[in-house]
């Protein structure tokens, strides 16, 4: 005897297509004011990113991982969150950080090499940047399990890339989330490239979303360049988590328009025509066109939003660059709740030695000299 034990299907959601044409019936209900706010954050995130690249080229910032092209994944999902939801980001989530309330100044400080940039203000539930790929997924699952234990209605939301789905911790995190019905939303920004490895060489699965099925959780693929689709899928996933129905894996199908990091040169492995095709699908262009068509914004508002974003970013850079330097001995001060005897001695030694050290080279230059290409693994 042979029979089918189970069969599944994977849904794809697109609401706003690349020409700015909207499927009004499936469009989530969002007020014009909130639409304008979403637009503002899309522009702010892009402006932040453009500026960061410039700063890096000018030697004013260390290695930076740009996020150009993935703005809708971040703004669409983060707008669906509630204040008490916890976010476990990877390292490209500048848009999510800013929506959660972390200032661009803090983010710049971090990428400029100042750890205090990741001293997230109290009351903002977003973890620091996680550079290792995939290892932060179980943290989100654990937080979700804790919310269940504590009877809190929060959701743990985790961001990662297509590369992370190959890591063992992706499996552990989604498996635990399934077994314990953890209130989690796993948002995979499938930007199709893990440094130089295309997603088809990352997995033989037709989609990443279908991996959810193996863990007994919900999975969906959305157009990651469509703010509405991302917002809607995230809202539904959050609702599912909050009402005790467990976790969701959302695959945001998108594209990394820029290099992996400022130390990478994607021309070596990627066809320029492919990039050109994806530029046509730009998440911001289509949203802007739609909002103009719907008269939510107009050229005057667009100009104002853009110039305000420029000003905000310039101010953030100024603040970041003029921040009081952190003392080098800071490296000793956050290892343990209170400093150990051995660390006290090493701290004193560092204090003595700091007086005779002359800074000769920045970290960024030494990375360049070493020919480092991918010191950040691709998510």
């Amino acid at each position: 005897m042979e029979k089918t034990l189970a069969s599944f299907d994977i849904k794809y959601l697109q609401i706003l297509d690349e020409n700015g044409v909207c499927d009004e019936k499936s469009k989530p209900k969002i007020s014009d004011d909130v639409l304008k706010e979403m637009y503002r954050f899309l522009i702010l995130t892009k402006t932040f990113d453009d500026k960061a690249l410039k700063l890096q080229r000018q030697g004013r910032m260390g290695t930076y991982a740009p996020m150009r092209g993935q703005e809708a994944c971040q703004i669409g999902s983060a707008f669906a969150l509630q204040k008490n939801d916890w976010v476990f980001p990877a390292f490209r989530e500048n848009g999510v950080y800013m929506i959660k309330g972390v200032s661009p100044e803090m983010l710049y400080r971090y990428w400029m090499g100042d750890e205090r940039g990741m001293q997230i203000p109290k009351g903002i539930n977003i973890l620091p940047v996680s550079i290792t790929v995939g290892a932060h997924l179980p943290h989100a699952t654990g937080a979700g399990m804790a919310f269940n234990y504590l009877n809190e209605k929060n959701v743990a939301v985790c961001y990662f890339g297509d590369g992370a789905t190959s890591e063992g911790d992706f499996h552990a995190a989604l498996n635990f989330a399934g077994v314990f019905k953890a209130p989690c939303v796993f948002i995979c920004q499938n930007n199709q490239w893990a440094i130089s490895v295309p997603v088809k060489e990352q997995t033989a699965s037709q989609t990443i979303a279908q991996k959810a099925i193996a863990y007994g959780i919900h999975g969906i693929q959305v157009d990651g360049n469509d703010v509405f689709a991302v917002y809607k899928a995230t809202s539904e996933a959050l609702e599912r988590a909050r009402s005790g129905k467990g976790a969701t894996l959302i695959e945001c199908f998108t594209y990394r328009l820029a290099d992996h990091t400022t130390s990478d040169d994607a021309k070596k492995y990627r066809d320029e025509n492919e990039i050109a095709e994806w530029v046509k699908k730009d998440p911001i262009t289509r949203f802007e066109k739609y909002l103009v068509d719907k008269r939510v914004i107009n050229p005057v508002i667009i100009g104002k939003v853009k110039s305000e974003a420029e000003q905000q970013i310039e101010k953030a850079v100024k603040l970041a660059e003029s921040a009081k330097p952190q003392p080098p001995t800071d490296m000793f001060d956050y290892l343990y709740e209170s400093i150990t005897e051995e660390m006290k001695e090493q701290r004193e030694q560092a204090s003595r030695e700091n007086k005779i050290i002359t800074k000769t080279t920045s970290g960024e230059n030494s990375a360049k000299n070493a020919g480092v290409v991918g010191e950040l693994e691709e998510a």
Partner: protein
Amino acid sequence: MTIKNMVEALNDALRLEMKRDKNIVIIGEDVGEDGGVFRVTDGLAKEYGNKRVIDSPLAESGIVGTGIGMSLVGLKPVCEIQFEGFIFPAIDQLVSHASRMRNRSRGRFTTPILIRCPIGGGIKALEHHSDSPETYLVHTPGIKVVIPSGPYEAKGLLISALREKDPVVFFEPKKIYRAIKEEVPGEAYAIPLGKANVIKEGKDVTLIAYGAWVKTAKEAIEKLKSIDVELIDLRTISPLDTETIINSVKKTGKCVIVQEAPKTLGLASEIIARINERALYSLEAPVERVCGFDTIVPLRLHEDYYLPSAEKIISAIERVMKNARGAS
């Protein structure tokens, strides 16, 4: 006071602290109904429910990784790793995240998890069940590492570890899980982390041991009636109580260190380095190490050839005494 072995003392510590602190949860393989393969969590699921004593899927990285997540949002997870040989999938979580979160967030986020894990050989077990990987964690900034030497010590140190705000790896020497029985107070008591214990004062030679080998060191001393040995139980191997070690070596001028783990770059190496930095001119003889070899721990038939023993300790002490400047 009741006579208890180490398994019972550890169980007692967990039971008492779980009663005191509702945020303590236990997660690990077979920790629930089965009570753990060594029975350290026996009866706790029945007493506190399976929401607090969680049988996890079989994934060490998942156990510690979810533990980190729980600790970030306010719980105090106790993660049990079934055997030290299986801790390696979780080492990434410990080294890359648990140890770094406080530093990475400049104090905003902390990960006060506790990892419990059996350690060491001496029970004639399979491969990966007789190893001593403590050095990997001692070499990791941001983590504390504790190894108790008996039931009384185990209870007091585990209670302290459960009250810590930093990540702690608590290694339980399986050779002495049931080999020592002694009086253990019924109530909760804390033995502070980071402080070594001078078990016996002496003037001739300092003998440093931790975990299972404290018992063996005592046996060795018993047989060395003519030599006045000072015995130190390190208790916490990270951070190391340098002061106690140095004070003792300055007094005796001689030192023997017992360490089951492979010799090269083990804890004994670091202790010798600290002695060199702070008490070199007090030394009357080269420091001796009684260590495991830089080999894979042999299976049951040859295991004893690898492990330290009272005889090996005695012979090291005798050598140190013989080599000492001015010795006849």
